[in-house]
């Protein structure tokens, strides 16, 4: 199950409860994949209640692979490249940067 863009938009209490029970249900039984631009420290915005938030994060990260996608925005770079047109080659330095 892939939940894309968790924390985007406001969820009401009932939706939050469905999400929480869903995550509890899957815990240690089936994998969940999540993308989010909300860092854990702000997850109480999603779950409203600090205890629920803590319980949810606890279960999610107990057995988890965390991928941090740092770096420049790929989307923005592509938009810039598109504006530049095809005549310009991307700068070589961008490839070697870590």
């Amino acid at each position, binding site marked *: 199950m892939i939940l894309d863009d968790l924390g985007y938009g406001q969820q009401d209490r009932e939706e939050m409860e469905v999400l929480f029970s869903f995550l509890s249900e899957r815990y240690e039984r089936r994998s969940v994949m999540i993308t989010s631009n909300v860092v854990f420290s702000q997850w109480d915005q999603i779950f409203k209640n600090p205890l629920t938030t803590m319980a949810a994060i606890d279960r*999610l990260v107990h057995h988890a692979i965390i991928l941090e*996608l740092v770096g420049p*925005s*790929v989307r923005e770079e592509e938009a810039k490249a598109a504006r530049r047109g095809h005549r310009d080659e991307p700068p070589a330095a961008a490839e070697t940067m870590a």
Partner: protein
Amino acid sequence: MKRQEPAESLAMRLRLLKRPSFVAAHEELARQAERDGWPHIEYLGRLVEREITERSQRRIERLRKGAGLPEDKTRGALKVEKLPPKVRRQVPALCEGSFLHRAENVLAFGLPGRGKTHLMAAIGHELVHRGYAVLFTRTGWSSACWPPSESSPSIASSSGWTPTTR
């Protein structure tokens, strides 16, 4: 006593047994068997092999349709060189799907436009290709679209989680 099967009833019975590749291929393979003098057991073996191969293809196709993955966000279209090296190194293992057997979660964080969705969708496509059931769902949800009604029965039932009927 020789028993002659009317061809139509054989096809019908194979259909009843849910062997669509048997239905489609048994006559053609039988002609080939006669021509090339295959022993009976080889004819049956080839027929079974075809059923198995096509069954797995049908399953993957069904999973692909049910997964709801964004079609353009494949692994091939993923710009791995743009991913942080630490993430990039994990991609091959994630695509193998061993984390699913350990019921591990995969959490991708980052600011908008860093390729989180593409990365997860690409892994999703690879998992479907390996026969795993995947369901991709956007969570900018409202209660009208959650729980997702398109969810494949295998996901819903195996998690003990029943989608509400609408």
